[in-house]
């Protein structure tokens, strides 16, 4: 379970996040949505332990971020950056195994884990020997998920996983991603500005606007009982919503 409780953050006296609360139940997939400037990137960096915050708690399974070293925290939260964020100078396999190697995991154990994850994300074994510039967007995304899951973290955090993909690939990968999340059985927080993606992949969602949570709930809650005019405006602006999602 991932919990963000009463998070406050200000830069040079200017408030960026105000009393943000967000809970992702064990094994659930939750979406953090908001337009650019809403504070969702700041919240993501706080959750990863990259920047300090002024007040509140970030907890995984009840244990607070500040009680861990950076390495211990990194082992508990698997991060998939935008576009996969693979290191360009090493192969897919080395991208996946780099962190485990640095943590001192044995070679056979690493190989077993890579093979296990390869099956979970359904990646052709030959792709593992390639460099990032030799892979497609979807392949990079799968490798990035393998890398994030390598240390068997309790929580996975994905930043705009589909942003850089073209709409057709996006559609098929969305389906793929959903089953990958199911097979991994992790607690997943998805950061996105795309409502359709959030609705398709996540059970619940939290909308952030101007550094504060405006609404938390299912898509049905958002559509039928919008908390304010901004939520209505945000939903109406997203015309690419799949019909199936709108119906549910």
């Amino acid at each position, binding site marked *: 379970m991932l919990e963000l409780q009463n998070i406050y953050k200000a830069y040079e006296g200017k408030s960026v996040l105000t009393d943000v609360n967000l809970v992702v139940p064990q094994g659930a997939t939750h979406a953090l949505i908001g337009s650019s400037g809403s504070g969702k990137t700041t919240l993501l960096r706080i959750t990863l*332990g990259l920047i300090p915050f002024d007040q509140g708690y970030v907890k995984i399974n009840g244990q607070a971020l500040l009680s861990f070293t950076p*390495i*211990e925290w990194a082992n508990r939260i698997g991060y998939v*950056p935008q576009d996969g*964020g693979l*290191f*360009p100078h090493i192969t897919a396999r080395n991208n996946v195994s780099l962190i485990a190697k640095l943590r001192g995991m044995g070679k056979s154990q690493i190989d077993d884990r890579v093979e296990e994850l390869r099956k979970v994300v359904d990646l052709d074994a030959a792709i593992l020997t390639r460099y990032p510039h030799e892979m497609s967007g979807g392949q990079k995304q799968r490798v990035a998920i393998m*890398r994030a899951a390598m240390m068997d973290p309790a929580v996975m955090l994905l930043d705009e996983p589909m942003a850089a993909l073209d709409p057709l690939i996006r559609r098929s990968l969305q389906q793929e991603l959903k089953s990958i999340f199911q097979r991994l059985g992790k607690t997943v927080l998805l950061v996105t500005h795309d409502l359709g993606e959030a609705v398709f992949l996540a059970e619940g969602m939290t909308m952030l606007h101007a550094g504060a949570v405006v609404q938390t709930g299912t898509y049905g809650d958002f559509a039928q009982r919008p908390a304010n005019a901004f939520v209505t405006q945000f939903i109406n602006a997203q015309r690419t919503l799949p019909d199936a999602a709108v119906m549910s």
Partner: protein
Amino acid sequence: MKLGTTIGKRLSGAAAAINVVALSLAAVCGARAFAAEPVVVGGKIFTEGYILGEIAAQTVESATHATVTRKLGMGSTGLLFEALKSGAIDVYADYTGTLAEAILKRPDLKSLDDIRQALGAMGLTISGSLGFNDTYALAVKDGFADAHGLKTIGDLIPIQASVRAAFSYEFMDRKDGYPGLVDSYHLNFNPQTVNRMEHSLSFQALDQNAVDLIDVYSTDAKIKKFGLRLLEDDHHYFPVYQAVWVARQSFVLQHPREWQALKGLEGRISAEAMLDMNAQADIQKVSFAKIASQFLGSEAPGSESMLNGILLRTREHLWLVGLSLLFSVLVGVPLGVAAVRFQTAGQAILLSSALIQTVPSLALLCFLIPVFGVGTKPALAALCLYSLLPVVLNTFTGIRGVSPNHLENARAFGLTRPQVLFRVVLPLASPTLLAGIKTATIVSIGTATLAALVGAGGYGAPIVSGLALNDVPTILTGAIPAALMALVAYGMFEVIGLLLIPAGLRRRG
């Protein structure tokens, strides 16, 4: 404020440390005289300087059987003088006019005794005149002289607006050179047609009609070779330049036999003999050693074969380039990393390595001689300093070019600072970084040829002496191997690139 004081203290600490190093170096230099160390003979970088140096070396060798180290073909007067004062060389030949004007800054001193007395205050002394006066003169081609009816320097006045001149740097800057000359003869040359040029190149320029008028030394064999006419100095403007030996007083006291042997040459070298010896070297390409031994009536020391010479030069050159390269990597890369890490200090690092680069190499060598003496040490120090900028700058640029996203991701994955540096930053910066090291190496191979000016040998030695002799084949025995070494280095870095630059970064573009 507190930080400022701390830094101030550290700086003065560093200055003290440098002083200690300098003092111990000076102590080492000073102690050299007491041990059975060789006598070091210096020589200026032109034909006469080489010949007089060789004559001095052979005279000491045959009179005392002392070992002699030759540091011939060293740069300018200032450089040799610094070397003499610091004890890096023991004796060299100079001219009274040069000593009075350029060193003592006392153009009023004319007699040998006056000059000797003034030098005494600096712990130096001179011998009596070796017998000839090598003064400045202005020269034109015979044909040009005939065409314009030139006999004296004053005859230049009618053509002063159009005459194209090439004067050496030293001549242009010395009070007893160009500035006083134009005053004395009321000359008014067109500044646009008065060029400053390396002395040995001005003869070529004159020969190829690129210029009409040059400054020469009156005993220069090239006067004969190129068929030049000296313009008569009817105002007796140019001072007298008696050739003398210059040495430290302490050397004279500790090596009385050597000094006596050198003084034995006083009055023995006539202007004709000198011009003849210069001509043998410049025109007939007789080796300096042979010219000196013929003059002294003794056997010439065995000369090395060309192949052995090149091998020796290669070893010296590789040593200079290799060590400075090692330094630039071991010091430059961490400095580049530090420049990224600490903003203010970083700018200071980049700026100071850039400033070093702007110091002309000869000037830098001159600054380093009081600290390091002559030979390999100052040359190596200069090369190390010069090779810093490309390495520091490219390390800095390469690291700054690494996307901040990769750095943030690495931190999110829990990589420690060293892991981020060595696993992510340096590999991603490696193409730029390696290009910097490559630049430093190639530039170093070129710059190391200047090391010969301070007696460090290398490919510069034949280039420098060839330049002094206007002897292209000799120049080529240095220049061609240097170019080949640069090519080999270039190829080597291509291979190193294949080995070091991660494959994921190589295939791009």
